[in-house]
């Protein structure tokens, strides 16, 4: 197997537990979008045009509530603001890629692709095929998101309630974040972000998440500077 293919499949493997967690969400989105009054085709296409889970849920809801278009568009933008943080964080590792690769990997840059991707880069730095790893993680998530949306549209989201597949998502993030907490500023960044996320949970448009991330980053950077 070529090095590129190997890196691609390694990315898919790293993404696997996240795919299990994302699947029920895709199905719920598909069923919800249809319920909100979107056509089958529009419901499906939103998963590839916008390709950002939580903003798709909110869009379906707002369409259902007949909110004005500019409000919906603004809401999508604010919910997806956190992707700028991911973009900034990955940028140094993608700097030597062609514009096509940068655009493709940007399109595939979700929470679930960012997490394994950045950890791989931080551990191993840039290698000749590391972007294939990110592609493997990003593309497998894209594929599962389209497939689960389709399934949700066609059979509805009839998941048994006591079958907590969605818990695979926080579990995978835990498995990824705990091992990188090697120094006190990193632990402080994680804890402060977590606590702020709880305090700011009821802010609209996922602003609590962005606020929490910014405070965590500030705390970590500040503590590091003190040493």
């Amino acid at each position, binding site marked *: 197997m070529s090095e590129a293919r190997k890196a691609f499949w390694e990315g898919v493997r790293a993404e696997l537990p996240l795919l299990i967690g994302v699947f029920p969400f895709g199905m719920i989105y598909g069923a919800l979008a249809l319920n909100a009054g979107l056509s089958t085709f529009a419901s499906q*296409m939103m998963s590839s045009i916008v390709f950002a889970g939580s903003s798709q849920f909110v869009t379906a809801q707002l369409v259902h509530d007949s909110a004005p278009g500019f409000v919906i568009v603004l809401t999508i933008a604010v919910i997806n603001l956190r992707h700028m943080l991911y973009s900034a964080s990955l940028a140094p590792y993608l700097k030597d890629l062609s514009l096509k690769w940068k655009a493709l990997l*940007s399109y595939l840059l979700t929470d679930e692709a960012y997490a394994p991707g950045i950890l791989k880069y931080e551990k191993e730095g840039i290698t000749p095929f590391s972007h294939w790893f990110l592609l493997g993680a990003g593309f497998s998530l894209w594929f599962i998101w389209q497939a689960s949306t389709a399934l949700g549209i066609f059979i509805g989201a009839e998941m048994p309630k006591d079958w907590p597949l969605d818990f695979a998502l926080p579990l995978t993030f835990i498995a990824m*974040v705990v091992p990188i907490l090697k120094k006190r500023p990193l632990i402080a960044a994680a804890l402060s972000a977590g606590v702020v996320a709880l305090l700011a949970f009821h802010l609209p448009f996922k602003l609590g998440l962005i606020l929490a991330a910014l405070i965590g980053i500030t705390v970590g950077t500040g503590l590091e500077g003190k040493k």
Partner: protein
Amino acid sequence: MNIWLIMFIGGLLTFGMRFSLIYLFGRFQVPETMQRALHYVPPAVLSAIIFPELFFQAGLLDLSLGNTRLLAGIIAVLTAWFSRNTLLTILVGMAALLILQW
């Protein structure tokens, strides 16, 4: 506004934000503090996603022993801390949740 127009503008904005700093990198000097700050993005963002998933159930802060996701999450954190093994952490966390719910 037409639903397709909403989706296209929303999609374009989302792509634009994902692409923005990847595209701009190298076109201007990134301040040193900013570069250091970027190392804290993964732990900060991931924790900000994890905490509410564990502590909030059905939209309410639940600190009780009845919050099975919080207990299973703590068990997963301990497993991850001592084993540093992704698969084991997920399996133990999932098993803990199923047993606690049962």
